[in-house]
């Protein structure tokens, strides 16, 4: 059996781990257009601010490939998939045949057309290690940085650039920051917190025109800068599967075994759509744990062991300038909020069941107990919700259920 994996990040690595649980000997080839061994992408902001060394950003130990008998083809880009001939063609002209193929191509920055952007010499995305290296090369002490996009990527870049005493302005078309994971009140708390670190926000507007060192905004303001970070959004890399005739929506469509509509072609991670149990529908869940766990499920199936990726929902744990957030699920339902203006806790219940939460600051501890209520569909009939809503705790389960849980120790991922 020969497995080929396109992509060397969380989903691709998860695929190797899934395959090797059941097939110790089959040939595995990983092809990636990046030249590096697998690394944790979210760590690029920590590298930029000097908290983590490049050595310590490895997502798996250095001997991972050798131990798992993986052949690396790094710095090579796949041009096309031929699902009938079961081979992929590389831009270099080589072809690689497969029995089972994994497409773990991730996502790419989305840069909307902006007048004059080509005149800006120092502009950067912030998703890959090479982006981080380019930013580090360009930044200097006290640099004026314009960040376009007040989402997770833009604000993690801001956090890192504070270590260079950068004078930062963040512009976003939305009326608040981090709308993908926070509600309005939590956005406001986080915005104030980040502003207190010297970052300026200009919301509800966009850049209408760039010159080499200025941006004129739609609201008439002008921002001068030495460099620009473009963090408007990301788009799944679906082209390979689409061009091969596979089913693609906003992301690559798979079944719950991660199989695409193409025979023996699987997909996992940020390039795919996932079925989100918290909204009962498909959406892109571009989060690292999801990518890894989908990869594991795909790998098992590729190796002939039936496995399913169920119970996916959005979840994020992230901090900005020392203020931490843990969020999960959907915020559609009856909300219970507790806040002192700095710390924030919102629990959303629908049909007698926790569907989502936002925890900030002091409320984040033991959040995983809440996550388990969503994942395991535990209703108010099955545990003491009143106690549980006060703080996540095992005490809220009845004795039998608690002992059952604490005795188990088998985990709960799928």
């Amino acid at each position, binding site marked *: 059996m020969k497995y080929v994996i396109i992509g060397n990040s*969380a989903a691709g690595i998860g695929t190797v781990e899934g395959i090797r649980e059941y097939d110790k000997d089959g040939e595995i080839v990983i092809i990636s257009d990046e030249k590096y061994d697998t690394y*944790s992408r*979210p*760590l690029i902001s*920590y590298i930029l601010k000097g*908290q*983590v060394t490049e050595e*310590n*950003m*490895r*997502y*798996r*130990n250095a001997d991972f490939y050798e131990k798992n008998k993986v052949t690396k083809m790094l710095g090579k880009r796949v041009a096309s998939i031929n699902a009938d001939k079961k081979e992929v063609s590389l831009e270099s002209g080589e072809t690689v045949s497969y029995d089972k193929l994994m497409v773990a191509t991730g996502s790419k920055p989305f840069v909307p057309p902006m007048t004059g952007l080509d005149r800006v010499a120092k502009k950067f995305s912030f998703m890959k290690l090479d982006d981080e290296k380019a930013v580090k090369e360009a930044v200097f002490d006290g640099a004026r940085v314009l960040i376009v996009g007040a989402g997770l990527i833009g604000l993690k870049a801001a956090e890192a650039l504070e270590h260079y005493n950068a004078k930062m302005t963040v512009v976003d078309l939305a009326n608040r920051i981090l709308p993908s994971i926070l509600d309005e009140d939590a956005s406001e708390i986080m915005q104030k917190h980040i502003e207190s670190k010297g970052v300026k926000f200009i919301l509800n507007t966009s850049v209408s025109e760039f010159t080499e060192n200025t941006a004129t905004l739609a609201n008439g303001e002008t921002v001068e800068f030495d460099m620009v970070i473009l963090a408007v959004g990301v788009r799944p890399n679906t082209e390979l599967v689409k061009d091969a005739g596979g089913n693609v929506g906003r992301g690559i469509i798979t079944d719950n075994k991660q199989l695409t509509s193409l025979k023996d072609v699987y997909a996992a991670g940020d390039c795919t759509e996932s079925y989100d149990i918290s909204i009962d529908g498909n959406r892109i869940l571009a989060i*690292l*744990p999801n990518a*890894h*766990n989908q990869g*594991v499920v795909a790998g098992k199936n590729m190796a002939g062991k039936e496995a399913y990726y169920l119970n996916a929902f959005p*979840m*994020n*744990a*992230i*901090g900005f300038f020392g203020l*931490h957030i*843990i969020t*999960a699920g959907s915020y559609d339902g009856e909300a219970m909020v507790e806040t002192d203006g700095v710390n924030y806790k919102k629990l959303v219940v629908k049909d007698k069941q926790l569907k989502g939460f936002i925890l900030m600051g002091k409320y*984040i*501890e*033991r*959040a*995983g*107990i809440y*996550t*388990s209520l969503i*994942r*395991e569909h535990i209703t108010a009939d099955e545990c003491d919700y009143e106690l549980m809503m006060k703080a*996540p*705790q*095992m*005490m809220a389960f009845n*004795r039998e259920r*608690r*002992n059952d*849980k*604490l*005795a*188990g*120790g*088998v*985990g*709960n*991922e799928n």
Partner: protein
Amino acid sequence: MKRVYVNEDRCLGCHLCEFYCSFANSGADDMAKAFKLDMAATPRIKVEEGGDINFAVSCRHCSDPSCVNNCITGALSVHDGVIEIDESRCVGCYTCVLSCPYGCIVIDKKNGGKTITKCELCTRNSQGEPACVKGCLNSAIVFEERGED
């Protein structure tokens, strides 16, 4: 494998297990020193108190652990069944805190929350076997094989 289990009928809620855990992971050679010199580590075991019912909770060392599966950096891994944290690769994102269904990943307050910490069954300190078990006055915490795997 051997795991730490609690018998809630015997737990008095005295929190001694938390103190033994703090001491065991402090690097100090006696308990008084650990606490008086502020060397005590953040406890990785937690007592929940509920009036009549008390019990201690610590890492279950799951066989298919969400914390390890979901770790964004690779800092969490399994060695001989024990889930370990490599602090040098932890950035304190708390994805594991979000993931653990038992609430057993602990934010390491000792270092200002820069990393997490967790029970490693005293395999990486000088104790040899779990200090919480040894220190429990009422044998409410045991370290034993129960045959799950």
